[in-house]
């Protein structure tokens, strides 16, 4: 019997090539997209999962509530680790990391700027089990001045991991011996090129910081517990801990606010809210949901195609159903047959989808910045998912036609003159409307997303990000800083270099907050505020405008000691109507405000401009900014490169452009949204495939009517109109249904941005028009074919 079903299914497939192609292509594209999305989501959700003890590790993050508001830091104090060990003897391990950031690394005659260097202690590898390519994880970081390299970094200097061990690297003027090499596989919020023994760093701490300076937040603290069931109890213990140690200390030292340690399970870090100064930016879980939804939509639309075409064509299968019943098939057998058929077709589609995925993986990798290989084909987990897809799609797509077809009464369908109508036209229309509603939501989403991204890039940031070359000034080299006025002068000798400035920070980099006393109603009140250290030319180099007062000037000798510039947001925070002359005490400065800048963005447009203090510090390291003219850019950049390398031959030069750097903030988001755009396109493609099939079915059904109309003198155009009208109405209905849903969803997405494009009517109109256009094009193609037929042939076919 199975053989019989199989033959029938196959022969039907071959006999109805167009329908089969539409069904199989639609399903294959849907399934292939699903597989790719599945890979993507799985990858996104795989953070930390490669650590054996991932489910037992928590991080302690600091939350401070004070007049300045609620602040969250990924960091905690060095004092936390020894205190935890003392207070909680049953905790297996406490380990702390500290960022070493970017350093110039010396090895023999090789020099590289290495980023993502992290200080760790000897217990780190006990908590986080990295695969070691060389060295014993239990002891690699025991000794001071040791370093464990990532495989990637080791490859840069050595031929094999074993070769690295014992070699000496120098950075920050200290020698470090390589004791091991780890494999950097899997996603983690800890991205390290090397782990450096922290003892050198610890030795430099003063007693106060080591024991009870709770606000000296410079460490990432991880605790290995026994399991997730312990997390809640541990949070309670940490609250008691803060009450016992930290908050009394805050009072004793006349500081304001209260502090709390939040227990953050390791596995949740990637998708948790952004904590200040985290090791890597948080991911956005909503994108995972969006992609999952897109995958379901794609499959659903492909299933609807199958259902629609199968029922539309049911007249052709009705006789077979009737006959099978006549010879003794009962309904359940017929249902099984058609379900089996759809599972069979799905199976073919899945095979095709696998081939498609195989072909698309490189493109998908390029698109998503990921590194998928087809190795996953053989994982049981994947095969199980695949099987689930086959069964799910086969049953979802097959059930309606199966129940519909199996319900035929043989007595009705075997009457040779009257074939039953092809299923419920209303249901089919409803399904088409559903398809187009989904497609439209995705088109509208895509348009909104891209106009928002465009808006972000083109919005006036309050500074001019274009034409600014940024050179990294290696930190901790005082001679470099001392010579800055000289090199600036040298660079300015090129007429294409307009302004040169140095600053400790630039937009799109993490800002540091400082505690200060600010004048409020004749009193000095405590505030913490973002602070930058800039020189006289910073505002010019950045193209930042003043709204009040004046810029720092070399003509005023007192500026360095007693003048400060703030932004408008800071003035607003303090409620100063005339900020000029207001007193601010910060670090060892006791100064007056001399200027207020217009607000400019130092972070992505997801957030509002925050209050900012710009302190004059002509000798700060960090970045050298050179605003250059657009003409002869390459030559100018080359000139600056040569000058800088001559000035600082000790470090490899690192430079970039401000605009690219700023836009980099949106890169991950943009990538994701581009992928979304592609899938939106596919959704429409599959929906149109279905529409094409339905249109050709309708045209076929109405061939006779068309013929008669033509005989009676109807033009081709009016016949196309006749056939397209129905579908146009359906698309119209979809537009009406999709608009509010899309509006709601996109509005919600836009809430994530402090600055956003308005959801104007033209977006909906454009989406609606394009969907209508695509649909009509698809339908009229079929209608044309029917309308152009010789009327004689048309009438005779019946």
């Amino acid at each position: 019997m199975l053989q019989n079903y199989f033959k029938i299914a196959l022969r039907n497939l071959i006999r109805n090539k167009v329908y089969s192609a539409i069904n199989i292509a639609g399903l294959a594209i849907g399934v292939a997209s699903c597989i790719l999305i599945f890979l993507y989501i799985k990858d996104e959700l795989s953070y930390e999962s490669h650590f054996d003890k991932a489910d037992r590790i928590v991080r302690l993050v600091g939350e401070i509530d004070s007049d300045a508001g609620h602040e969250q830091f990924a960091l905690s104090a060095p004092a936390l680790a020894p205190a935890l060990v003392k207070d909680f003897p049953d905790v297996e391990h406490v380990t702390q990391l500290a960022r070493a950031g970017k350093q110039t690394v010396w090895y023999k005659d090789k020099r590289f700027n290495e980023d993502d260097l992290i200080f760790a202690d000897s217990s780190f590898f006990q908590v986080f089990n990295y695969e070691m390519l060389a060295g014993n994880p239990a002891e690699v970081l025991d000794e001071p001045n040791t370093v464990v390299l990532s495989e990637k970094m080791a490859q840069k200097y050595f031929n094999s991991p074993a070769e690295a061990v014992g070699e000496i690297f120098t950075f920050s003027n200290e020698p470090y011996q390589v004791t091991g090499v780890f494999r950097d596989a899997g996603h983690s919020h800890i991205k390290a090129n090397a782990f450096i023994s922290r003892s050198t760093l610890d030795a430099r701490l003063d007693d106060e910081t080591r024991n009870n300076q709770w606000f000296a937040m410079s460490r990432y603290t991880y605790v290995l517990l026994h399991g997730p069931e312990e997390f809640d109890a541990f949070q309670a213990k940490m609250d008691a801990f803060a009450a016992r140690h930290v908050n009394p200390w805050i009072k004793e030292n006349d500081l304001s606010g209260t502090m709390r340690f939040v227990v953050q399970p390791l596995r949740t870090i990637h998708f948790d809210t952004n904590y200040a100064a985290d090791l890597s930016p948080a991911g956005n879980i909503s994108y995972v949901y969006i992609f999952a939804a897109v995958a379901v939509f794609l499959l659903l639309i492909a299933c609807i195609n199958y259902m629609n075409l199968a029922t539309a064509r049911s007249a052709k299968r009705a006789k077979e159903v009737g006959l099978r019943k006549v010879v003794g098939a009962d309904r359940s057998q017929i249902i099984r047959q058609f379900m089996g058929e759809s599972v069979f077709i799905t199976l073919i589609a899945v095979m095709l989808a696998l081939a498609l995925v195989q072909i698309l993986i490189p493109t998908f990798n390029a698109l998503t910045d990921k590194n998928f290989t087809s190795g996953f084909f053989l994982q049981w987990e994947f095969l199980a998912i695949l099987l689930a897809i086959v069964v799910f799609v086969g049953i979802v797509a097959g059930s309606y036609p199966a129940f519909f077809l199996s319900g035929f009464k043989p007595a009705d369908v075997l009457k040779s003159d009257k074939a039953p109508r092809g299923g419920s036209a209303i249901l089919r229309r409803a399904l088409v409307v559903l398809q187009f509603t989904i497609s439209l939501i995705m088109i509208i989403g895509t348009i909104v997303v891209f106009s928002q991204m465009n808006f972000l890039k083109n919005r006036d940031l309050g500074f001019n990000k274009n034409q600014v070359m940024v050179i990294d000034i290696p930190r901790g080299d005082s001679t470099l800083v001392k010579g800055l006025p000289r090199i600036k002068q040298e660079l300015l000798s090129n007429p294409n270099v307009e302004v040169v400035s140095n600053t400790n920070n630039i937009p799109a980099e993490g800002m540091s907050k400082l505690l200060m006393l600010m004048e409020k109603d004749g009193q000095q009140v405590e505030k913490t505020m973002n602070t930058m250290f800039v020189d006289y030319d910073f505002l010019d180099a950045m193209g930042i405008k003043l709204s009040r007062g004046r810029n720092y000037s070399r003509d005023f000798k007192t500026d360095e000691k007693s003048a400060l510039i703030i932004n408008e947001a800071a003035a607003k925070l303090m409620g100063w109507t005339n900020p000029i002359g207001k007193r601010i005490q910060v670090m060892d400065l006791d100064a007056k405000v001399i200027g207020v800048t217009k607000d400019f963005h130092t972070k992505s447009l997801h957030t509002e401009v925050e209050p900012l203090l710009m302190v004059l510090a002509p000798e700060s390291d960090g970045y050298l900014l050179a605003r250059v003219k657009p003409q002869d850019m390459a030559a100018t950049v080359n000139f600056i490169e040569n000058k800088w390398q001559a000035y600082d031959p000790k470090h490899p030069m690192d430079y970039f452009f401000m605009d690219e750097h700023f836009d980099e903030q949106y890169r991950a988001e943009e990538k994701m949204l581009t992928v979304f755009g592609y899938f939106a396109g596919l959704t429409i493609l599959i929906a149109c495939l279905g529409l094409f099939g339905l249109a050709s079915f309708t045209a076929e059904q109405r061939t006779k009517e068309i013929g008669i109309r033509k005989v009676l003198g109807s033009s081709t155009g009016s016949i196309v109109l006749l056939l397209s009208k129905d579908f146009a109405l359906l698309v119209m209905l979809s537009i009406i249904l999709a608009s509010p849903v899309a509006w709601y969803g996109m509005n919600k997405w836009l809430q994530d941005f402090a600055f956003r494009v308005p959801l104007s009517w033209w977006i909906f109109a454009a989406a609606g028009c394009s969907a209508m256009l695509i649909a009509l094009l698809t339908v009229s193609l079929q209608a044309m074919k029917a309308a152009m037929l010789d009327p004689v042939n048309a009438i005779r076919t019946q």
Partner: protein
Amino acid sequence: MNKEELIIETENLQKKYITDTVETTALAGVDLKIKKGEFVAIMGPSGCGKSTLLNILGMLDSPSSGAFRFLGQDISKATERQRAKLRKENLGFVFQSFNLIDELTVEENIALPLAYLGVSKADTEKKAREAMERMGIAHRRNHFPQQLSGGQQQRAAIARATVSNPSLILADEPTGNLDSVHGREVMSLLSELNEAGTTVVMVTHSPSDAEYAHRIVNLFDGQIVTENLNVRRHATELL
């Protein structure tokens, strides 16, 4: 009359079709008894309910009211599944328009009832071959229905109807789409089957076809108006 001998027994069988606006009475109280081994022809003008009656007898349709016993079993209480079972075990159908499945070959069409009966592969092959040989279409076994002439198609349909040795064959105008030569051929095939013990109930418009039957039931407006024994047939049998 001995009850055991009855294969079909209906009492006041009614069938009404209710469409959007009108109610059509296709059968208005039919009492019919058919004995095992009989050959019955149902005749009557177009639209009088012949096909409707045959479909109900074949359990392809259910009556609106009235009793229908098949081999003594009350069918009005049977479930869809039980009817399907009775159908595949006892009935064979022949239609005016042949009704072969286009996507299956002649042999596959003929073997189909056996598949639903769960007959083994070897037995299926054997029985299908026998049926094809009986009907003289064995050489066409691998052809698709469209590749056969009408007469060949009808012989294939009869082969399919008989392959499982049903006790009752229902034929709705089996010669309606055939020329007289092929028509006679089909009639003699049905006749042979009947002689071998199969009960045959046939709807026909053709008096000459009706000649093959033992008994002719005349239907008019959904009711049996006359039932007559086919004298000639009985006469030959008596000889």
